[in-house]
């Protein structure tokens, strides 16, 4: 049973339950009114309606699972930084589970704070930017399946997920810098403006190598679907022949999710808090949360493209394999974050254009050569 069938079953059960009411009303009410309720019942029981509702339910399930994972990620981030920095990290709230509840406590604290909109801010952009940022980030985690049976699918068949999902995920990933620029511009503050501009420059220079390495993966797999890409890695993970691509992809992702060697848009030393300077309360909290979502999405992309996705010995379920790999990638990201200084913006653009782009092209050539030789 895959997630779609599970959701379909739930909806089916729910529709049957509620249809008792509609059909009973159709029986007892006279004439046109009765026909109307009968029609509602028939519509609810139709396959199209149930399929759409099942998709909504499965996206809800996937997003909830992803958000719980993000809570874990924030907790890991805090605990790990504590271990690296010689302190304990959070442990008071939820003492017996290692301070896991600290995230929730922080969330509650941020929720009760006053929401302040700067007087001279562009209200439309200021309010819209977080929505775009968070919406696009959650959309990525919705697209990436956890396993052949666990993802947002369009049919009953296992493995039939959003067609071209990998391309869609990368496209959605690139929306966030736009919202960062919007947030920085509309806040009407010089720090946020510079942060937004840096984000735009960063996106332009790092999106291209990222996509080129992704193209090499698509080339080897011969497909844009996550399931096909992972299936193509049955014999060997793409991370091994495309080692250069893996490194380039990780570095570009670090720039995309703005973690420390490349967190120039929110470089706190010179730009206070960068583009989030004017956002307070739960908006800041959502940005913080979304950064973890994006880091998770980055880990999931690396896992699916290079680390064999959910493949592994069958002792552990596929979904857990996928999560383990994504967690490991996330931990590597955090390790990098806490042990490296921040680069300067011109140095970062230099690395992007002069190092990563040629490497990405080289990686693409390697992939093309291997495909031509028929190794994949």
């Amino acid at each position, binding site marked *: 049973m895959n997630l779609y069938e599970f959701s379909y079953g739930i909806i089916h059960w729910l529709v049957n339950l509620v249809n008792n009411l509609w059909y009973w009303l159709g029986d007892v009410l006279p004439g046109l009114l009765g026909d109307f309720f009968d029609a509602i019942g028939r519509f609810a029981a139709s396959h199209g309606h149930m399929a759409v509702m099942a998709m909504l339910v499965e996206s809800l399930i996937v997003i909830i699972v992803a958000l719980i994972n993000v809570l874990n990620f924030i907790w890991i981030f805090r605990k790990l930084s504590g271990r690296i920095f*010689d302190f304990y990290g959070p442990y008071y709230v939820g003492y017996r589970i290692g301070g896991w509840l600290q995230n929730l406590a922080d969330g509650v604290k941020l929720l009760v704070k006053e929401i302040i909109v700067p007087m001279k801010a562009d209200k439309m952009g200021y309010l819209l930017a977080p929505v775009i940022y968070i919406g696009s980030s959650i959309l990525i985690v919705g697209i990436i399946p956890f396993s052949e049976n666990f993802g947002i699918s369009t049919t009953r068949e296992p493995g039939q997920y959003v067609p071209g999902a990998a391309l869609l995920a990368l496209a959605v990933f690139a929306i966030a810098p736009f919202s960062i620029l919007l947030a920085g511009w509309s806040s009407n503050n*010089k720090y946020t403006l510079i942060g937004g501009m840096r984000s735009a420059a960063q996106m332009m220079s790092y999106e291209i190598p990222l996509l080129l390495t992704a193209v090499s993966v698509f080339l080897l797999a011969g497909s844009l679907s996550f399931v096909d890409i992972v299936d193509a890695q049955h014999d060997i993970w793409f991370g091994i022949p495309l080692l250069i691509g893996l490194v380039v992809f990780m570095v570009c992702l670090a720039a995309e999710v703005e973690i420390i060697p490349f967190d120039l848009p929110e470089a706190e030393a010179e730009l206070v808090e960068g583009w989030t300077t004017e956002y307070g309360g739960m908006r800041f909290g959502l940005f913080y949360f979304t950064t973890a979502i994006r880091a998770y999405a980055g880990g999931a992309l690396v896992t699916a493209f290079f680390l064999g996705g959910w493949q592994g010995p069958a002792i552990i379920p596929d979904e857990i394999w996928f999560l383990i790999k994504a967690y490991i990638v996330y931990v590597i990201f955090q390790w990098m974050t806490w042990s490296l*200084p921040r680069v300067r913006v011109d140095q970062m653009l230099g690395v992007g254009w002069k190092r990563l782009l040629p490497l990405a092209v080289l990686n693409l050539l390697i992939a093309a050569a291997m495909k031509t030789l028929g190794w994949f």
Partner: protein
Amino acid sequence: MAEMWINMGPQHPMTHGLWNLRIKVDGETIVDAQPEVGYLHRGIEKLAEGKTYTQIIPIADRLCYGSSMTWSHLYCLTVENLMGLEVPERAEYIRVMAIEMQRIASHLMWLAAYASDLGLAAGFTYTMRDREVLIDLFQALTGGRLTYNYPRIGGVAHDLPANFERDALRAVDYMETRLKQYEDMFEGSKIFMMRNVGIGILKKGDAVNLGVTGPSLRASGVSYDLRKDMPYSVYPEMDFAVATHEDCDCYARYRVRMDEMWESCKIIRQSLKKMPKGKWRIVAPRTAPVGTGLGRVEDPRGEGMMYLVGDGTDRPYRLKIRSPIFVTVSAAPKILVGYKLADVVAIMGGLDMCIGEADR
């Protein structure tokens, strides 16, 4: 993007204190800079005129939170110069040991702030943790952890506590192993070197003309250290080298401070070894004669100077403080122009700002 002025401060993560750096940027490039100090003015010079000579020592501590021992020592040195007192030799050695410990602690705090400025969060926690070793020593010695109120006119407040020498030697050994690790950690990081080498060039002539002193001057290749050039206390007895560097950039300033920490470790060892037994304090008179007293020391941040006018009573007529950072910060426009916005933190962090003493 058009040119615009940005206020970095008074409340800004870059400032390390309460001051304002106005910079004019063209996109990301700095075209002009104006430092503004004075937000932390507490009127210490005026305050001193209403207090007796002994009561001023704790105020002098408050001049700089990073190196309070140096400033109270400088004040005592000035008053002794005014009164013409001879300090017992043991007290001199204890003072030298304490201010060298203070120099290491101050430089470690600078390193911590510098690392976190550059985004290296691990550098912040490690250095601050190791500063704790020295702070614990100070606590054993003086009872205080930040402002010590330890030197007295004519000596120091107490003798060394029990087992202090053993603890101090252990701390120095520990510090030397850690300094090695810091050098590996910072200089082994390519990004750290990218952010430092060739950034914030302050030419020799400019540094001298602008009155920059201390590590920032020595990093410009000028071997000027009051401990050698105008020795006070028992520094002539000590065997140490003046750390200089020819590169004139942020890396040179980092390197000079690291070398100074090594030299300070040496001085602490020597002073503990050569420390004679005997009195650590003489009874100083309550009143000072009519006249002037001058004290100059090598603060961790540069040349600190105090000028004191006595009028025959138990309170000074006038106390003038020469702050190294007040002068050094005036070099900011000279160093900053032409670099990127992100270099502001590296350059101004490399000067080791301490606003308490600049604003007095």
